[in-house]
């Protein structure tokens, strides 16, 4: 339900026309209908960053959670740990697979979403909000600028804007 209202907001903002049933990414369709939010920056490895003051909030994208399937475990980094842009900072388990997740930014981890310990499915339910994974104190704002904007990320996914 949360995802449907999120999709509705996204559809209004981006003039996407997608019926709820078409939210699911189809590897057979020429275009993805994954949800992409305009106010985020994206890594090619399908993580997102939202800048909040001098911190970046990090999670995995709607596309990623859909492709991974039901998330059953998130290996969270420790608060206080240093993460580096492009390096693995944790693991998401789904469908018998442990998939590395990569930090889009460098800095110190100042918070992790402890709700994910008992409710890893929040990553599927709300990948851009309640499924956030960590907050990082930004070391270099330039790193954020070098990430993909929403339009470039949509192009990467082949998201149709028609």
């Amino acid at each position, binding site marked *: 339900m949360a995802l449907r209202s999120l999709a509705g907001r996204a559809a209004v903002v981006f003039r996407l026309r997608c019926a709820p049933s078409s939210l699911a990414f189809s590897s057979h369709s020429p275009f993805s209908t994954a949800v992409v939010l305009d106010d985020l920056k994206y890594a090619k490895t399908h993580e997102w960053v939202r800048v909040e003051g001098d911190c970046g909030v990090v999670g995995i994208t709607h596309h990623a959670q859909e492709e991974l399937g039901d998330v059953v475990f998130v290996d969270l980094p420790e608060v206080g740990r240093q993460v580096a842009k492009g390096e693995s900072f944790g693991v998401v388990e*789904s*469908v018998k697979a442990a998939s*590395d997740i990569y930090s889009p930014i460098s800095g110190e981890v100042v918070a992790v979403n402890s709700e994910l310990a008992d409710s890893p499915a929040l990553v599927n339910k709300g990948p851009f909000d309640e499924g956030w994974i960590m907050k990082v104190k930004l070391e270099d704002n330039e790193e954020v600028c070098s990430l993909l904007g929403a339009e470039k990320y949509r192009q990467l996914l082949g998201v149709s804007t028609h």
Partner: protein
Amino acid sequence: MKLLRLQGFPILQQLYLEERLLRATTHNWCLINQGTNPPAIVVGISGKPEKLLDVKAVLQDNIPVIRRFSGGGTVIVDTDTVFVTLICRRDAVTLPDLYPRPIMEWTEHLYLPAFQTVPRFHLLEHDYVLGDKKFGGNAQSIIKDRFLHHTSFLWDYQDFRMAYLKLPQRAPTYRLARPHSDFICRLKDYMPSREAFADYIVKAFERQFCLQEISLDEVEKTQPSSVPHITSTQIFTTADLQQSIMPLIVKG
């Protein structure tokens, strides 16, 4: 693809090796290990012994419990298990992206020729089955531009060992709450010999890869363990296992 054939290689060492070959090398690999000794229980990356095992029995019988770096469920492995592992670069497979389901489907097609003589081999939910009976556990680890897919095939198994495993909380729909004995089957009932099975697998993989056999010594020389990499494989100590059931003992 480099092919490494092992015999009775301890599963803990195999998992350390696999993690190293996945994370610290750029080659494609196939490992085939015929059995492991002593028997061991292997849980997935998020596996909790107190939820998955009869820990008291495991402690009493001194069965090693290992947490592997890949996802998925719990297996008990011994000399009757045949292990097959694939470690591939992204460019070795025709998949647009490395995600669990497409990788599983790709492996089904890869394995299909190996099971030509066996009725009803297919992928059901996320398991390799003959009909509706599982004969191998599989799991994956996916990193940037590489993935590992490993399977423990049940050549044979001992019912009493299955008793260490609880019915998992997350089970495939097709299991239908069947006990282990009704849910799994022995590959030896369908194949002429373990050696023949290994040969069928190699021939199946040769349809997609050029396999070059390599020895463990050559692997150790050319891909030394000193190369730093993330290591998640761990063995639970006796203290770890005892601690895992402490809240249950206190409650009881």
